[in-house]
């Protein structure tokens, strides 16, 4: 079993209103050194099979379901292999 964390975020060209609002809130706390916040989401998935097959599955579910390529992009990290 492999634990994988898939990160889905807006593409750079897409306006992220949550990130913008949170950035403003951080500035109102006085942390003006924080220049930009981007909000995304992550999915922790447990996948069976060898590591090559796991990567293939992760790419497929991301592309078919988890990511809307009009707006979003993704990357993933292999958290641990058991």
């Amino acid at each position, binding site marked *: 079993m492999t634990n994988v964390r898939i990160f889905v975020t807006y593409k750079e*060209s*897409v*306006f992220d*209103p*949550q990130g913008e*609002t949170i950035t403003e809130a951080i500035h109102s706390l006085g942390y003006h050194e924080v220049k930009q916040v981007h909000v995304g989401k992550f999915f922790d998935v447990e996948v069976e099979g060898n590591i090559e097959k796991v990567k293939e599955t992760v790419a497929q579910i991301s592309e078919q*379901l*988890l990511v*809307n390529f*009009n*707006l979003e992009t993704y990357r993933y990290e292999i958290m641990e292999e058991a």
Partner: protein
Amino acid sequence: MKIAVVVFPGSNCDIDLYEALHTVCHADVAYVSHTQKSLAGFDAVMLPGGFSYGDYLRSGAIARFSNIMPAIIEFAQAGKFVFGTCNGFQILTEAGLLPGALKRNNGLKFICKTVELEVSNNQTAFTTQYQAGEHISLPIAHADGSYYADKATLEKLERNGQVVFRYAGENPNGSLNNIAGITNEQGNVLGMMPHPERAVEALLGNEDGLRLFKSILENGKIKEEAAL
């Protein structure tokens, strides 16, 4: 013509849509559950507003895996009329029947109010009863209504006259090019964030949405007669 109103788990404008067609327009209309696999016998299909599958993952993202979706896609490809309002529009983009996507409103809030729209194209099957450039008012009620598409897609939409409705007063949600509703390239699929089905009776304060349904019914009839 016979019209299907698809009911997904979490649809909540299905009755409004049904009644606009049945009670106000006296059209032949029936509910079709998301569990069905066929649209045999129908000439048009309408996807209602609401929160199908709780808007989980992204609005409309899960509905596209419903049993009924292959039939809707086949229907659209056959050139039959497909209409989606609000969540129905989101589902149509997620299913790839319309380009682009609907994202969180720029102001992050759920907005429920009446807005001013411009009829940017009255030469579609859905808008022939409106005047070109006419300004109408329709209610909106959404949190994820900010239309986004890449530059090339926007240019294509504009060039082909696929932008059918545009926000004419303030842009409530940050939609690019003030887009409130678009068709596919063939013009037989329309998706829009405003709710015409909530504006079909003067008694309820607004009937600007009525002509959209009348346009579909009229153009459906013309199509049927041409086929005979």
